[in-house]
């Protein structure tokens, strides 16, 4: 009798456990924890953007145009305070990066993916490039300092005029070179072999095949990589500090497209932001000025980044 009772009970328990859909509490909790990791991260991003936007209204809301045309000043209440010199520096740094890093980087990627024999030298160059991509940016600043300012090697300081937008641009071009090579290399690897074989089949030489098949097919990928590296260069500050970007004793306000000022003392948007943020301790008005400069910088950087992301997603979808 007793044993039957236990039997019935256990049978009922087993039946219930099979029929009832139990809630997997631990699994649910785990999922919530994972979700909150993402939420916290995105919340931090949102707080960052909102804080910067709110802080910047003091400058951008009331005197946007003056702020864009003004110059660096020692007091935040100065009526002519603004970021013109920073924009000049950043604009030309971007141009120099595009002129130097893009052709060299894409060329190197073409060589490594399309020409290079699979041997030790090629493997060495590839490892070398990957390691270069991991070198801290401030170390590139040291290279710029030795190479372009002190002229220890090749006497390049006479060309760059020492600490100048030209020096800054060359340093950042060297900094983004590995990124350009790696991203373009990935774009080339994604080109289907059939395209290459087809081109050879109709009698193209290797370069003709690359120019007519590989480059057009890989163009969106290359563009994505160049946009990302441009954004990186425009936002970078540490190497510029090392090559002597300053915020005081700058020369006459150069016109935005005045090439003559390229070898003068220079500054750039990230340097302006750094300087104003550091100064906000003694002059609170600089918080708003720094935030406003950040908004201007972010508009450019995020535009380039989002364009890159959109471009990549679009082509990934298309080519499945």
């Amino acid at each position: 009798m007793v044993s039957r009772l236990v039997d019935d009970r256990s049978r009922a328990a087993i039946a219930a456990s099979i029929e009832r859909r139990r809630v997997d509490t631990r699994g649910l909790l785990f999922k919530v924890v994972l979700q909150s990791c993402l939420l916290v991260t995105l919340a931090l991003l949102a707080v960052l953007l909102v804080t910067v936007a709110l802080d910047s209204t003091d400058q951008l809301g009331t005197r946007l145009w003056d702020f864009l045309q003004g110059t660096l000043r020692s007091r935040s209440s100065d009526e002519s305070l603004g970021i013109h010199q920073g924009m000049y520096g950043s604009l030309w740094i971007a141009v120099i990066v595009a002129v130097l890093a893009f052709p060299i980087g894409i060329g190197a990627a073409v060589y490594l993916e399309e020409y290079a024999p699979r041997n030790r030298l090629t493997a060495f160059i590839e490892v070398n490039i990957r390691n270069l991509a991991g070198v801290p940016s401030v170390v590139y600043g040291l290279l710029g300092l030795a190479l372009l300012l002190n002229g220890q090697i090749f006497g390049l300081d006479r060309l760059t005029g020492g600490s100048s937008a030209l020096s800054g641009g060359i340093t950042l071009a060297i900094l983004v070179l590995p990124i350009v090579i790696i991203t373009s290399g990935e774009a080339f690897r994604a080109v289907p072999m059939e395209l290459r074989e087809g081109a050879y089949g109709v009698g193209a030489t290797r370069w003709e095949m690359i120019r007519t098949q590989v480059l057009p097919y890989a163009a969106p990928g290359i563009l994505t990589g160049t946009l990302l590296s441009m954004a990186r260069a425009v936002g970078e500050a540490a190497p510029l500090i090392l090559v002597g970007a300053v915020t005081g004793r700058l020369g006459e306000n150069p016109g935005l497209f005045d090439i003559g000022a390229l070898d003068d003392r220079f500054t750039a948007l990230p340097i302006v932001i750094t300087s104003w943020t550091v100064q906000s301790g003694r002059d609170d008005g600089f918080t708003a000025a720094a935030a406003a400069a950040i908004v201007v910088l972010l508009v450019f950087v995020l535009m380039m980044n989002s364009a890159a992301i959109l471009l990549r997603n679009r082509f990934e979808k298309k080519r499945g």
Partner: protein
Amino acid sequence: MHSEPVTVDQLQIAPARRHREVIIRYSLVVTALVSVLVSTLIVWSLLREAWTFITGVVWADTWGQQGWFPRRGLYDLPTIIVPSLIITGVAMVVAGPLGLGAAVYLSEYANPRVRSWLKPALEILAGIPSVVLGFFALTWIAPNIVGRIGKETFLVVGAALLLGYAAVSAGIARAKIRQYREGAIDPSARIGAVASIAVLVVVFALAAAWTLNVWLDFAPNNAGSLAAAGIGVGILVIPLVASISEDAMAAVPDSLREASAGLGARKMSTATAVVLPAAISGIVAAFIVAVSRAIGETMVVFMAAGAADAARFTDSPFEGGLTMTAAMASLASGTDSVVGEGLTFQSLYFVGLMLFLITLSLNIIASRFVSKVREAY
């Protein structure tokens, strides 16, 4: 029918076309060699100046001095190395769980539609320049997060982290001991196994002593501090941890997940007991790369670590401090030529060389781990 024999000339392409091929090929070789030239120049310039420092500096003075004042010829290395470690530690405490959690969610749980929104959002975060995070760390994190950490909160968080660390290392130690008992450890690897347990214990003891020390001398600070800068650096490397770990988990073949589900495992068990162990090499690589990036990060630390007036030694995250990178930036900032007595300029390159060697070795170790994942699947 009789036709002329085909000559070599007819089979070859026109000379002009051939010459163009050769010229293009060699110009491309030159562009590829630029990267080698850059590496050579980096190493050469670092070694050249650092060597002058290494041979010229009084080594007894690089330990136990008041602080790092290169312009006065005082080079106390712990003053810049310890804060670098603290910043990296804080950054990893922030970025490790958040990045890994985000990666597991994106890889194992999120449906394609959610993913297609979340991934770009993380990429936006990855694209935010470090000066922006420096500003954020100083003006928002310092007063709103670090400034609100009380003595009790610090103790609770510190104890929780220590316990977590202890639990993980106890697990590792137990596994090693079991392997040892079962004779699964090669005799030549025994020393390594013992050493790794010893390292875990020593690190725990150091971390516990340090936590206690900081707790005893606790002083709140809502201006720039190592903790504020560390959190800023942490936010900066979250996307890095997330994307590398997610890549590693994406490389785990679906057949493993299906097999796990077929045995009746729930999603959580599949994620923690199948996918994570299978992707562990890639996750370790993600953490190492993040550490390397955090040590080399300059601007957030320069702006938010309160270093301007703190070149003295500190081991508390709630005080201002100078890291290796910030030391370089402060030495070079505001002037277009680094001046000072004696070895000031060379000290810059010595610190740079240390940084270069540390990050290079970390990156090499990380790429070893990444290639392990590639080999496995």
